[in-house]
């Protein structure tokens, strides 16, 4: 059994840890609120843009656009969206594991290139000698639409110059404060789906021509998709950290309770032993005299 002093030391160190995790929980909660507002505000735009693209795609006979053309997959690019900092539960692990299984399942024969968003993913894949063609570290703190535009421009170039034949993204989708899900989605080639049972929909008038609108809209669609993904991942990260730190704080609380109990028991044992020693000593003295 641990000595009283050891237990006391452990209690004070767990208390310190608890203070830290609790502070981190509060910081994550504040960041989470902001991140949640951002993603909720951005969704209408991404959603409408998607609908618009589908409407337009259903109207176009020949969807001739370099970003829509499907090729045999010899080389792929995967964007891995993780966080820059740890202590957020299984947030990064889930993405990394999903990325690896995704590569094994779908691209075992292809050359794989990674674009890492976030330090954690970068560190993991660098150590394991994956081919990383770009990294975006520390962009989550001050997320800007231009970041999304930059990434979109990069993969567009890779795709149109036929350096890669397919672009996927693996990220945490933000569902709610307690639920994040890891998704692997295809970014390129863009596959516009048929409009969802939109009976009201009829032919448009176009200004300028439909081809020109199409040319402008397709790359923009990529920008908005990536922007939404970055915001999704950021909100999910803060939510995951909030939950992780909440659990850590609760666990510390429990540990402190257990240790306190143990400390009291140890103290009681010591007192009992001292008393019995005193009593024993007194009796021995009495006997010696008597």
């Amino acid at each position, binding site marked *: 059994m641990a000595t009283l002093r050891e237990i006391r030391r452990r209690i004070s160190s767990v208390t310190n840890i608890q203070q830290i995790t609790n502070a981190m929980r509060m910081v994550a909660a504040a960041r989470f609120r902001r991140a949640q507002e*951002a993603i909720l505000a951005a969704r209408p735009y991404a959603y409408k843009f998607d609908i618009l693209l589908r409407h337009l795609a259903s109207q176009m006979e020949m969807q001739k656009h370099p970003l829509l053309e499907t090729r045999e997959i010899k080389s792929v690019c995967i964007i891995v969206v993780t966080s820059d900092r740890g202590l957020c539960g299984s947030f990064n692990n889930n993405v990394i594991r999903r990325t690896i299984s995704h590569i094994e399942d779908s691209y075992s024969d292809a050359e794989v290139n990674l674009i890492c968003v976030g330090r954690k993913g970068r560190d993991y894949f660098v150590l394991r000698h994956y081919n990383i063609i770009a990294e975006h570290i520390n962009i989550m703190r001050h997320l800007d639409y231009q970041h999304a535009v930059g990434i979109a421009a990069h993969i567009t170039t890779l795709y149109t110059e036929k350096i890669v034949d397919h672009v996927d993204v693996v990220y945490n989708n933000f569902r709610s404060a307690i639920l994040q899900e890891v998704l692997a989605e295809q970014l390129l080639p863009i596959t516009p789906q048929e409009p969802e049972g939109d009976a009201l929909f009829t032919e448009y008038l176009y200004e*300028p021509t439909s081809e020109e609108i199409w040319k402008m809209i397709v790359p923009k669609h990529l920008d908005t998709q990536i922007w939404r993904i970055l915001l999704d991942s950021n909100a999910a990260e803060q939510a995951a950290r909030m939950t992780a730190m909440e659990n850590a704080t609760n666990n510390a609380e429990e540990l402190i309770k257990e240790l306190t109990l143990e400390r009291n028991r140890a103290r009681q044992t010591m007192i009992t032993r001292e008393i019995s020693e005193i009593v024993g000593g007194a009796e021995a003295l009495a006997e010696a005299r008597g």
Partner: protein
Amino acid sequence: MFEKRFNLEVIAPQQVMYEGEVTTVRAPGVVAPFAVLAGHTPFLSLLEVGEIILRDPSPSTPLPEVEGSKPQYMAISGGILEVLRTGVTILVETAEWADEIDVSRAQSAKERAQQRLARQTPEIDVQRAEAALARALNRLRVAQHAGGFG
């Protein structure tokens, strides 16, 4: 005369700017500026840098910037406008209500762009400078409508 109303949404990447009814919306089409009234045929147009004017706005979610039946002005830097039978949707890249425009910032952006254009060196991206100038001038023009002098 009583004018028919229709639904309008103006959505920017970072927020929904307007959601509600109007009688007319004017927009800077790339071919020519135009106005949309109720019952317009389905239509899709690219928009350039310019101003959007909303007549008789009545937002379903009240926005502090939009009040009364005065026309409301908004500066945008390009986008796309879609007319469906159910209403009009405008997706804009950036948008500011006339009241929100930071005039001094637009002014300095204008001067910076002008300087860059004035002493043209090979490393200056003329197209970018011209686009920046157009945006700054547009903001300054729209900002004159601030305070409800529309």
